[in-house]
């Protein structure tokens, strides 16, 4: 036995095994027929597709198990298209598998790396021609070209400036001012404290000025959730307690994490849950975060009642609502 390690050898391509359709003419004819049938099924699919488009009314519904009561035109249009396409593919593949030549062929790979003489020739050419252009030694041209190309690269950036306004202090402002009435969303009805039972919630927005139209931008900052609990259940500082009214507390509905609407109030636990990332806020403790990725409690809106007994804001929010940003200093 030699000491040299002898690896197991490559036996080479195995002998070609003929298919039934290669040797048996009946099998060949059968395969042909099968391919033809597949193409014909596809044709039927196209006919079904065209029929569904023109002759099935849009308001007919059919019942199928699993699908339920579904729109007939949409279903048969789709099935027709699916059959039409799928069976062309099936026919082509079956044709290739059973009738087209299936002998394995060997081709040689070419070396990817170029020949040394080609490489040398390239290097020589580039050197010579770049040298002729003279970029290397003409430093005045090099520098001025660099300046002009660099500058022109700035021009698209300049053009994009008008994409939007500068934020300035827009992120810190909402429509809530001292004395703004709380109104229902939707409905725009003002609210009295006695309208809310203990355990009730209300979706509110600020009352609009007569000339104002509410936009989605406004809702995105102004949306507030009103919750009523028993006043003795609050665990708040004296200041925050003064922002509530008879057990009613108001929070910004825009999550302090990433801006989803936090309106899921659990009456039993007095927790607010944001459905996006499951941040959980404790209402009696001024929406303190008790679970989840939110890092800040929901901003609390200070409320009181006005002369007519309707709920109003005492003052604007004392911090920006919604997700954090670099300039947020609180």
């Amino acid at each position: 036995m030699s000491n040299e390690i002898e690896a197991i050898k490559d036996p080479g391509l195995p002998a070609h095994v003929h298919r039934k359709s290669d040797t048996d003419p009946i099998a060949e004819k059968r395969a042909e027929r099968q391919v033809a049938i597949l193409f014909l099924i596809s044709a039927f699919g196209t006919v079904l597709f065209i029929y569904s488009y023109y002759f099935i009314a849009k308001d007919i519904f059919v019942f199928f198990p699993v699908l339920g009561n579904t729109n007939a035109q949409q279903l048969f249009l789709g099935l027709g298209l699916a059959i039409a396409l799928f069976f062309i593919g099936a026919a082509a593949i079956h044709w290739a598998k059973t009738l087209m030549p299936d002998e394995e062929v060997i081709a040689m790979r070419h070396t990817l790396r170029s020949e040394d003489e080609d490489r040398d020739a390239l290097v020589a050419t580039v050197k010579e021609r770049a040298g002729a252009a003279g970029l290397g030694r003409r430093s005045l041209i090099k520098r001025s070209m660099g300046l002009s190309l660099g500058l022109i690269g700035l021009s698209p950036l300049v053009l994009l400036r008008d994409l939007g306004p500068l934020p300035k202090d827009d992120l810190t402002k909402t429509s809530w001012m001292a004395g703004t009435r709380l109104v229902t969303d939707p409905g725009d009805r003002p609210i009295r404290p006695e309208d809310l039972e203990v355990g009730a919630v209300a979706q509110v927005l600020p009352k609009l000025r007569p000339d104002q139209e509410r936009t989605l931008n406004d809702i995105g900052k102004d949306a507030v959730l009103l919750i009523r609990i028993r006043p003795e259940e609050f665990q708040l500082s004296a200041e925050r307690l003064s922002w509530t009214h008879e057990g009613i507390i108001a929070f910004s509905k825009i999550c302090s994490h990433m801006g989803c609407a936090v309106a899921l109030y659990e009456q039993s636990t007095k927790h607010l849950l944001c459905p996006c990332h499951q941040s959980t806020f404790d209402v009696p403790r001024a929406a303190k975060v008790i679970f989840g990725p939110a890092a800040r409690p929901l901003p609390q809106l200070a409320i009181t009642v006005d002369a007519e007994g309707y709920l109003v804001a005492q003052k604007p929010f004392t911090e920006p609502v919604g997700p954090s940003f670099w300039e947020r200093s609180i």
Partner: protein
Amino acid sequence: MTARERVTGTVANYVDERTGAAKWMKKNLTKVFPDHWSFLLGEVALYSFVILLLSGTFLTFWYDPSQREVLYQGAYEPLKGLHMSAAYSSTLHISFEVRGGLLMRQIHHWAALIFMAAIVVHLMRVYFTGAFRKPREFNWIIGVGLLTLGIVEGFLGYSLPDDLLSGTGIRIAEAIIQALPVVGSYLAYFAFGGAFPGEAFIPRIFTVHVLLLPGIFLALITVHLMLVWYQKHTQWPGPGRTEKNVVGYPLMPAYMAKAGGFFFIVFGVTAFLGAVASINPIWLYGPYNPGQISAGSQPDWYMGWLDGLVRMSPPLESHFLGHTVSWNILIPGLIVPGILFTGLALYPFIESWITGDKREHHLLDRPRNVPNRTALGAMSLTFMLVALINGGNDIIATNFHLAINQVMWFSRIGIILLPPIAFVVTKRICLSLQRADRELVLHGRETGRLLMLPHGEFVEVHEPISPELAWKLTAHEQAPALALEDVDARGVRRAGGLKNKLRKRISQANAESISKPTLNDLKEIEHH
């Protein structure tokens, strides 16, 4: 010559005189392509892209990319009389009044999900078989680029109808932009043309979704395919297959028929899904309103892992000198994904640094023969899977009667613990499989027949395996660990000490495997 042959000849002559096409057609029609089902995964992605282009173009004929407010008076009763954006209203119009509109919407969306799934499965195949090694590193990077852009393109696409679910997704995207230090609020106001939601975002992402990104995709996919064409496809090891050849079928006719047919298969399956399975029922979500939200709001599956990472993040935020940095958004939303995708893109170079292997490879690896790479892949997939599961933690909680808090804690702990466990388990499984292969080569296949020897012992009869199978199981290379000495021949300390130490350590771990059997081993057994 028949009439047909004469006509074909005239046309061919006309074209060839003007383009010289005959030469390269002759060369390419006989080009050889190796045949294996796992090589079709990339094709699923390619064909899905074509389906997206076709169905998407159809949709653009009716879709109105505007957030201008309109009053809906269309066919869907439960939304009649409501104010909504033109984008949402036009999508309702496509769904309920344009014949085939809902079908095309659904085909388009299903194709997008399949496109991403196919890219991921194709990436897994390329990774686990080592097809990214030289000379295919460029193609790998292009592929990772396609994956990343695909995620963005899909997100933008399903945001176009401006419904409650996708609008929520845009809100979250805006929060990520806004959270960027220094420039965040400016970039957000530029992107949205002001405060959220504004009226500029959807028209702008329409341009990106329909023009810019598809253009980039077309360019990248073309280069991707050209490289495959020019470098020739890799092949599995086996009898007759070497690093210097390609064994398979010629383009014409078999490969053309199969590949072309497969396009119709992919389109047919996608159309079938579009026919029988409802996707993105925007009429039930309702138009987007920042004061509304649905329980169980998730992005499409290919972004689910991002959502899962954000959900499990600890509530970290820094406040200093009048500024805020939201680590709870930046880390899971940008930093961790950035590290993952950079690592993914650079992997071919990382691996060649570990193995020191600078040669070309055209034969694929069987995953069990590269235990470290396979285990690393399993580890990465486990990480993504835990993140993905956490993205659906509320749906899981509702359906399996768990608490979302429980699922969240499982994910927080699991994402740290489970990946290394997956690594160890996978590596051990690979080594066991190598052992099983070695057994098979040396001792043959168990036939299940028992034989009683003269002295009373029962043995199982083993049948020797075929030379083809023996070759397939031993064709792989088993390179030793890199010989990196800390001191060179003259006793001088090598530069880059820590890097080399790390490289040597990883290289040694990487080289751990069960030595494949040789002819010597076989001969030894024969003597027993």
